């Protein structure tokens, strides 16, 4: 992973953003869940998206690899507009790692098979090489000894770390995290955040939707605050938590930080 981190830092100095959203709109029926959203994420940047539930932050995250199609606006990834469908879209998705709230590990496959599936079927890697790399990744997220178990035999924290390893196995250019710790028991949140923090430290480009304010404070380059489908604030974490400018953000922070 050291190569990747160097690449991230080098690329971080270029001006072209890796992910760019321009005037993105999305409706669920009459509900306007994304309203003229503009956002750009540079290489190596860690952007944490926070906001009240129903504010559209998950939809934003899922729109970036087109798990959620948008109604208008453009999304570009690495200079290319998102393909609409078919193989070009599949290729793009293979370059964007995604981690879900509910892990979504393939239930009928072992942890090792979960991690090697993409490299073997999408990247056409040799199974032996893919397995070797997968074991190294599982060791890295601390669950090397669970490789031959099935997802249901693991704790939530272990499953989520396996899901991160599965995404990393594709050697993605960016990682999307859609509330990765929201379904976990409190004592397992830390082990997942630890993996994410180390990824951030290595220069991985990350978009993280989360309620973990601690992670936002120490790992994020920018915090985006969303409410009612709009990007309300976009600031470095220290500035955002010390001096939120909007009433919505002040209100939100007062609700979560007073407990």
């Amino acid at each position: 992973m050291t190569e990747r981190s160097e690449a991230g830092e080098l690329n971080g100095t270029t001006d072209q953003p890796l992910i760019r959203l321009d005037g993105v709109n999305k409706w669920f029926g009459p509900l306007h869940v994304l309203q003229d959203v503009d956002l750009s994420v540079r290489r190596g940047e860690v952007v944490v998206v926070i906001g009240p539930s129903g504010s559209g932050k998950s939809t934003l995250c899922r729109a970036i690899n087109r798990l959620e199609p948008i109604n208008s606006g453009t999304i570009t990834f690495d200079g290319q507009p998102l393909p609409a469908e078919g193989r070009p879209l599949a290729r793009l998705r293979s370059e964007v790692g995604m981690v879900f709230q509910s892990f979504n590990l393939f239930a009928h496959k072992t942890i090792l098979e979960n991690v090697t599936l993409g490299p073997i079927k999408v990247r056409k890697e040799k199974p032996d090489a893919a397995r070797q790399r997968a074991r190294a990744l599982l060791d890295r997220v601390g669950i090397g000894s669970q490789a031959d178990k099935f997802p249901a035999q693991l704790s939530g924290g272990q499953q989520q770390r396996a899901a991160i390893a599965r995404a990393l196995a594709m050697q993605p250019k960016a990682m999307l995290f859609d509330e990765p710790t929201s379904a976990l028991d409190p004592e397992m949140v830390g082990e997942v955040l630890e993996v994410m923090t180390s990824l951030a430290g290595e220069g991985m480009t990350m978009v993280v939707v989360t309620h973990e304010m601690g992670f936002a404070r120490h790992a994020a380059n920018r915090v985006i605050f969303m409410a009612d489908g709009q990007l309300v604030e976009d600031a470095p974490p220290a500035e955002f938590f010390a001096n939120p400018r909007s009433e919505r953000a002040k209100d939100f922070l007062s609700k979560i930080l007073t407990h």
Partner: protein
Amino acid sequence: MHVFGDSANLDATVAGFLWILKLTGASAVLALVLGVLLAAMRVSPIPVLRLFGAGWVNIFRNTPLTLIVFFCYFGLYTTLGLTFSDDLARNIYWLGVVGLSTYTAAFVCEAIRSGINTVPTGQAEAARAIGLTFAQTLRIVILPQAGRAVVAPLGSILIALCKNSTIVGTIGLMESASVMKDLINANGDAVVPIFLVFAGVFALLLVPTGYFFGWLANRLAVKR
């Protein structure tokens, strides 16, 4: 049991059940392959394929099997000249297999499709998120889990198929039910024993099949 003491009657009975097993075996394989393909069509994003799958299910699931088997004989063979073998019995056998698998595939399709609905949407999302195509997602992630969820209903369909294969007797194959009818005609004094023997053999074949599929369903169940 003087009827089955006669070796000619016994041979005919054994031969009749052998036809049933052969009809069931070949039709089960064909119906499974066809049914899975039809289910894949029904969930595909291509409207023409969805229409074809839905059409197949609605036509063949709602047509009496006797009609379908008759059509295979009088339509495909007599009128259109479709011939599988010069041997009369073999030819009828294959016509029967066509009818049975066409009909059964409709039920297999619907069972698989209900299995697909038991697979959480997150599984498909995760598959697409690592870059699998639609076909790969279906083949590698969805269908294996859907299939495991419907092992028990597929067992019921197999049992129904085995009993349904007696209908091929109506187009002239000397399968078990036809043999039974002949034996009853010739031995009016032993109707009940003859009936019990044939019913008993079916039970002997199918009761363990049911238990086997129940066991298999538990063994293959996907833990979540």
